[in-house]
């Protein structure tokens, strides 16, 4: 098994009386896109800044690309690209100039034009950074982090504050990094972002990792029950326990005199089949029928509620 790109064991960090990170363990493997989720103040940025070589730690063992990041050297910096939580650009330089400036810091940078294409700013290459939209600025920010052709990329909340289309655009770009063989560690508040981008997700709460898995399996999500819900119009027959045991107590009165029905199902295919057969037989429409697996957000809220 290859060495992990990031390995953290028992990481502790406090600021005065506040313990930001309390015994955190994490491994990120080569070439994976790894998302870290967690509420504000959970310790995400503290952990990230320790991994990036910006912050010291109080205790624990940390290795990033085989090196302790508390003593970063230029050779290690060559291999690490960083996008900070706040976009940091020189507004008076153009997109191309900004990339040329940072290209000069690395011994074998990627060609500037290639990076412009990679982040989709071809049409803005000669526009000043200060004239770009928020989403374009962030893409330039990512471009700057990529200019040194790093093996590992840190993205701290890369799409916070974006409108939905800018977010899609950024996602496609980040997904493209996987094809370049980069390892990416990103933090985010958006479940759909983690779902779309990440191979694996860690949820951090109160300075510790409370769950790590693929977005599909996080928090045993695969094995949690599916929720089935629908409405029956007023005056129509209503299915009861003779159809499905689970319908016991599943009904509430709707405002228009109809019924709202919702229940948890461990065997949704069978249950739906029975319901549908009953509905067809009685000529009843199951209005607004929804079959919903617990979302990543449900699992996340459950995991961080404590």
């Amino acid at each position, binding site marked *: 098994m290859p060495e992990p790109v990031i390995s953290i064991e028992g990481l502790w960090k406090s600021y005065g009386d506040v313990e930001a990170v309390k015994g955190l363990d994490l491994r990120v493997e080569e070439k994976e896109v790894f998302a870290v989720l967690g509420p504000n103040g959970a310790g995400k940025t503290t952990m990230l800044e320790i991994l*990036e*070589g*910006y912050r010291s730690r109080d205790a624990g063992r940390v290795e990033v690309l085989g090196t302790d990041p508390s003593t970063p050297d*230029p*050779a290690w*910096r*060559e291999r*690490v690209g*960083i996008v*900070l939580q*706040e*976009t*940091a*650009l*020189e507004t*008076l*330089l153009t997109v191309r*100039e900004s990339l040329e*400036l*940072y290209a*000069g*810091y*690395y*011994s074998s940078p990627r060609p500037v034009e290639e990076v412009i294409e990679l982040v989709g700013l071809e049409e803005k290459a000669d526009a*000043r950074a200060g004239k770009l939209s928020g989403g374009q600025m962030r893409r330039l920010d990512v471009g*700057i982090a990529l200019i*040194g052709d790093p093996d590992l990329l840190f993205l701290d909340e890369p799409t916070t504050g974006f409108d939905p289309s800018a977010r899609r655009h950024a996602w496609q770009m980040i997904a493209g990094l996987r094809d370049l063989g980069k390892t990416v560690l990103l933090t985010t508040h958006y479940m759909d972002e983690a779902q779309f981008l990440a191979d694996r997700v860690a949820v951090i709460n109160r300075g510790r990792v409370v769950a790590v898995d693929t977005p599909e399996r996080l928090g045993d999500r695969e094995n949690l029950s599916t929720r089935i819900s629908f409405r029956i119009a007023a005056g129509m027959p209503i299915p009861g326990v003779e159809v499905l045991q689970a319908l016991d107590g599943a009904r509430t009165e709707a405002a228009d005199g109809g019924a709202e029905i919702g229940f948890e199902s461990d065997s949704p295919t069978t249950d739906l089949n029975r319901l549908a057969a009953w509905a067809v037989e009685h000529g009843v429409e199951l209005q607004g029928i929804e079959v919903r697996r617990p979302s990543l957000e449900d699992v996340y809220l459950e995991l961080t509620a404590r």
Partner: protein
Amino acid sequence: MSSLSLAVHEFRFSQKVFWRNPGSVFFTVLLPVIFLVIFGTIFGSDPIESLGGVPTTTYYVPAIVTLAVVSATMVSLAVNLTTAREAGLLKRGRGTPQPAWVFIAGRVGNAIVVSVLMVVVVTAIGRLLYDAPVPWGHIPEIGLTLIVGAAAFCCLGVAMTAIIPSREAAPAITNVITLPLYFLSGVFIPESEIPDGVLSFSGIFPVRNFFEAFFTAYDPVSSATGLEWGNLALVALWGVAGLLLALRFFRWAPKG
């Protein structure tokens, strides 16, 4: 890359940013010229008897050169580095393989080049508009004064960023420090109009000493050597103090 080429790379982009920033061009390049013309127009060219009969307009050339260099070095660096720090640019730069000093060096290089340019521009305008003699015979003295002063005020500018909390506060804090010193040091008002007690007070500070050194280097009437070692030493001492404070208190990232 060698250290020099790293610094040159950084300097090239510092230059671009400087000339594209209307604020820095106005306050650093145009304002000193405007001051020279305003003071020349208001106070005329009457001789200042206590200074050996130097015409007032000639007096203002080294005075405004002093202001221009302080502005291009200390003020510009304090504002510019604070802005870069608060925008996260310094923090981001620290995340690259680049050694940290290069980010300061590029901006200091910019400050020194603009200073040299301003010495030439202010001297040339003094000659063209007010017949203030160009001190051709004292080029080495002026050069040395400029180098010592620019270096010292650069250090003070870097140190000053430690007490500037935000980019909005930068112009106010630098003005609060420099404007009174310009008045008290004979930069805005001829020193013949300023009480001796005030001059000996401002003589503690680097602006007054820097101006005296420049005045001696420019003075066509009284100067024999063109150098004021005492004044230059005091300026250098302030510079060293600034350097030590900068090394101790300079921050690379916004607070918090």
